[in-house]
């Protein structure tokens, strides 16, 4: 988000020093996997979700009391820095029992042997989630490394009033989207449909995912990187073209200028995810009740898929002395109706379980979208169409390169294809440097 620099600085300095001390730490690796499941158990859980402590209290007073499992939440800052912190703690065998992790961070954690396989503890949980969401926690294997918590199906947000004013139709396909952008430019040269922002790689990753891209796949023991594949190229060229001809803006999101553009109607649409109402509430407070949500435009009229942007899961670490107790809590937290209602209320999350998406907490639309009563009904239908995603062990590197390469390409309105190629090359080079086998 806005302070990528600080985050990157922290990540880099941690990474550098981690590397320097990795050798020293390797000396002591005693596998004390003694499962002590009898008697009272107390677990620690690193999470950034606001109000998670209150949800854990529900467990501690209810189910947890029966099972003699007490969970203590330690609130953390989200993002890549937390992944690094977990890995540092894991080096010292001091990682907490449970951690919250974004889906794209799971392969990094798994390849560092930080996450436990809890497949044996979570029978039947799989059916409660959409296929595309669940598959992210298995990394395409028989193991289960986490339970999905929230998801971020992508959607198209637009200013209903201004679309009417400029006489625009809500685009069903990306071709129509481009036409809409051009039509708007003609009618009101100072107004942009939206912007292509290069400061949050999750957006581009989600768009590529919708187009069918598979950025990381495994082939036997080898990783295969497909960032530069045909689907991603299609997406990059599409947006690169729009930026080049000036049909959409090229300024980054989450800046004061962007907030202002949304608030004053200089930008009248946003390709975002289910959590957008929260962001819009702070970014564009004066536009309350003027927005509407629609499915993401499609690449062809017959398709109905969306990508995902954001979302996280609950994982059990290999350092935990009470893995099955931890798995029990993780399952409760993400499947129990009471827990999910509390999570939605306290933490504002959009649950990954399909049943919870239409449960009591989601009968009312978000306050900012009070004009669209079926917001969450629509959202849950869109969530079902989420395309599977494929993350690898160095998503952070790919994302950093994205910020740099696409950042300058968007600024200079130059070739997005070349930026994509840079992203591919840097990611492959880093994988090799880390000692992974990479299929060319």
């Amino acid at each position: 988000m806005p302070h990528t620099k600080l985050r990157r600085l922290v990540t880099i300095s941690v990474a550098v020093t981690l590397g320097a001390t990795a050798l020293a730490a390797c000396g002591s690796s005693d596998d004390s996997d003694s499962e002590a499941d009898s008697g009272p158990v107390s677990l620690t859980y690193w999470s950034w979700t606001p109000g998670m402590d209150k949800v854990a209290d529900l467990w501690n007073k209810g189910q947890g009391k029966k099972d003699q499992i007490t969970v203590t939440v330690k609130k953390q800052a989200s993002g890549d820095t937390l992944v690094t912190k977990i890995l540092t703690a894991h080096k010292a065998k001091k990682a907490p029992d449970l951690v919250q992790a974004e889906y794209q961070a799971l392969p990094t954690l798994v390849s560092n042997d930080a996450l436990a396989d809890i497949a044996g503890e979570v029978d039947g949980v799989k059916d409660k989630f959409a296929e595309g969401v669940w598959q992210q926690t298995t990394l395409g294997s028989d193991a289960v490394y986490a339970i999905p918590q929230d998801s971020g199906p992508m959607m198209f947000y637009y200013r209903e009033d201004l679309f009417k004013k400029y006489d625009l139709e809500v685009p069903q396909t990306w071709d129509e989207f481009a036409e809409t952008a051009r039509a708007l430019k003609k009618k009101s040269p100072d107004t942009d449909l939206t912007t292509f922002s290069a400061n949050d790689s999750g957006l581009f990753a989600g768009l590529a995912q919708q187009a069918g891209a598979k950025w990381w796949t495994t082939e036997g023991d080898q990783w295969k990187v497909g960032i530069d594949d045909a689907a991603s190229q299609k997406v990059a060229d599409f947006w690169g073209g729009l930026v080049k001809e000036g049909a959409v803006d090229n300024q980054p999101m989450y800046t004061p200028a962007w907030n202002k553009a949304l608030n004053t109607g200089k930008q009248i649409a946003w390709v975002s995810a289910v959590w957008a109402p929260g962001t819009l509430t702070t970014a564009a407070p004066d536009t309350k009740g003027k927005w509407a949500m629609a499915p993401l435009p499609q690449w062809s009229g017959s398709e109905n898929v969306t990508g995902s942007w954001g979302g996280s899961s609950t994982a059990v670490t290999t350092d935990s002395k009470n893995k099955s107790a931890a798995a029990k809590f993780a399952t409760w937290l993400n499947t129990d109706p009471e827990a999910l209602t509390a999570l939605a209320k306290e933490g504002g999350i959009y649950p990954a379980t399909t049943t919870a998406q239409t449960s009591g907490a989601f009968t009312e639309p978000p306050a900012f979208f009070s004009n669209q009563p079926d917001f969450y009904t629509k959202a849950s239908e869109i969530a079902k169409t989420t395309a599977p995603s494929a993350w690898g062990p160095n998503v952070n590197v790919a994302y950093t390169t994205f910020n740099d390469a696409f950042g300058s390409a968007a600024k200079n309105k130059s070739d997005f294809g070349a930026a994509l190629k840079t992203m591919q090359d840097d990611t492959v080079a880093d994988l090799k440097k880390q000692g992974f086998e990479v299929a060319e």
Partner: protein
Amino acid sequence: MSSLAVRKAAPAAGTTPGTAQGPPLRRRIALVPTATLLLGAIYCLLPVAWVVIAATKSGRELFSTFTFLPGTGFGENLKDLNAYRDGVYWKWMGNSALYAGLGALLSTAVSAISGYALAIYRFRGRETIFNILMAGVLMPPVILAIPQYLLMAEADLTDSYASVLLPLILSPYGVYLARIYAAAAVPADVVEAGRMDGASELRIFTRIALPMMVPGLVTVFLFQFVAVWNNFLLPYIMLSDDEKFPITLGLFTLLEQGSNTPALYTLVITGALLAVIPLIALFLVIQRFWSLDLLSGAVKS
């Protein structure tokens, strides 16, 4: 820190002979230096002004009104900050005060005694120790955070107050400053005179040398205090319980709330403003110790 350098240099400049001779020159305002200094001042003060003004804006005004137009939400922001998770902000403030206050105090004590020893006593290996310290000064503390974490983990001390305090106590820069200052401020003759009068070495240090070193030690203390107050990486790695977080870390968690929760900008800005106040207060209070006559000596040459 630059103000310190200026203060130290000032008396020396005043004693330069020759300036008072001849007919008094008309004082002219030197345009270029003044303009440069003004620019520098604006550069330094503008962000501060931004924080002060932004802290008065409500969430609705923050990004929509003119940047330097004061808002109407300061009271509301304070109230929200106070109410956030049952006032955890004040807990962070208290923690920061503890880490910075106690940490700087301990570090100053260690620096004083080691700096004094290195300056006054001649012993084998003295230069080696000093050179190692110099190397330590050049080493950014960031590099040490992870090794220190692994060490603390061995000792089972992670996620405790001690895990943040202990690594702060030995500050190579503090020892270095204390040594330089002791060498300049504590004349060998005075130490010798104390010995002649039969005072023990400890007594010489505590009763004679220490008072002479006070202005230098105040510098060490302030320097350490600010460094700890602004420290981020060490507590970030050591601590997982947010009840033990210092203010820097606490504000960071307010910003990084995950993608589905908007960052609490107004709280962070108000919190950052309040977090600067103790530092400013400390500088104002302690500043006068620097003005103690640095040149007052116990021996006449």
